[in-house]
């Protein structure tokens, strides 16, 4: 911390990233709607918006890493902010996924006459839950064990072992995504096949998307651990990644039990 500072709070410098992120989000939304309604220039605006958004994410997080790791602004009390913020973010993610499971349960507990009054709807082929779906539930759980190994290795000051553990976490995540891609490719139904396809692919697809985000988060943590950014006392970024990863692997249990297993037999 700076010598002359007599408090432990971080008074942030003015930053252009909140407004650039907002403009990127606006361009993405408007461009996305234009693209889906076949307006001229929709694809261009959507692409520019996404590039702008990704650029903002990169430079904003780069600045946060500089402020915390290089400038030492993240004191114990400052660390509370990102912790509470991240916990609230995960709570909002739980609600996001709850909506999809609710939609699935609503549609499957009392199937309408339009789909033959049965679940899965008449004519819908389902996957055997004990083949790829079960394997793809064990893989994220093993990856969750690997991230716990990484956490204890960081706390024990075993820097190299922590890197290995994060490599294992990421490899398992990539294998999961590979199997999920294979499952989608071989699946007998698609997202446009009745309410079954809609709820199935929305829930499992958003879970898969979250796995990809968690994989990127773990890759960044692995690189930062390799570079020596994470210490025994200060590794908030890693903790957030570990919480997120545990959220993603626990959430997988719900589609496995309710959509693949209960809803598919």
């Amino acid at each position: 911390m700076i010598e002359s500072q007599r408090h432990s709070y971080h008074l942030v410098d003015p930053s252009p990233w909140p407004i650039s992120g907002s403009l990127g989000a606006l361009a993405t939304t408007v461009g996305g709607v234009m693209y889906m309604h076949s307006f001229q220039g929709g694809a261009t605006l959507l692409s520019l918006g996404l590039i702008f958004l990704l650029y903002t994410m990169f430079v904003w997080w780069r600045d946060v890493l500089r402020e915390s790791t290089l400038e030492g602004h993240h004191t114990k009390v400052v660390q509370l902010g990102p912790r509470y913020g991240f916990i609230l973010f995960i709570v909002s993610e739980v609600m996001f996924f709850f909506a999809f499971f609710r939609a699935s349960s609503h549609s499957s507990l009392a199937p309408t006459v339009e789909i033959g009054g049965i679940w899965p709807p008449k004519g819908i082929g389902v996957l055997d839950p004990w083949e790829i779906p079960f394997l793809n539930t064990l893989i994220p759980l093993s990856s969750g064990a690997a991230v716990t190994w990484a956490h204890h290795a960081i706390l024990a000051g075993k820097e190299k072992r922590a890197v290995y553990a994060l490599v294992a976490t990421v490899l398992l995540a990539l294998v999961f995504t590979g199997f999920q891609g294979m499952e989608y490719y071989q699946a007998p139904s698609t997202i446009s096949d009745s309410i079954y396809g809609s709820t199935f692919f929305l829930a499992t697809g958003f879970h898969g998307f979250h796995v990809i985000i968690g994989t990127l988060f773990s890759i960044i943590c692995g690189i930062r651990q390799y570079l020596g950014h994470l210490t025994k006392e200060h590794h908030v970024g890693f903790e957030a990644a570990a919480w997120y990863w545990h959220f993603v692997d626990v959430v997988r249990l719900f589609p496995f039990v309710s959509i693949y297993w209960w809803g598919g037999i």
Partner: protein
Amino acid sequence: MASAIVRSGLGSAIRGGASTPRAFIASKRTFASHGHHDEAAEASKWEKITYLGIATCTILAVVNLSKGHPHHEEPPSYPYLHIRNKEFPWGPDGLFEVKEHH
């Protein structure tokens, strides 16, 4: 009378709790497992659990992959299957809809 005793008891407990140095010691964060040795043992335990998970997943992956993928029969064209309400910007099919067996 009884409520007054409870009130004064609670009051002294709160005051006492806040003023004694013991409270400061108690507020210091202590973990069930602290110190390098315990963390190293925990790391080693979770490393073993990870290896066990990888071994199980590898066996299951080999079993699943050796089965070959299942073939499904084409269902009758019920109105709720293959729903099309409007054209996609990129063509007739959804981006991930074109399947091997189609």
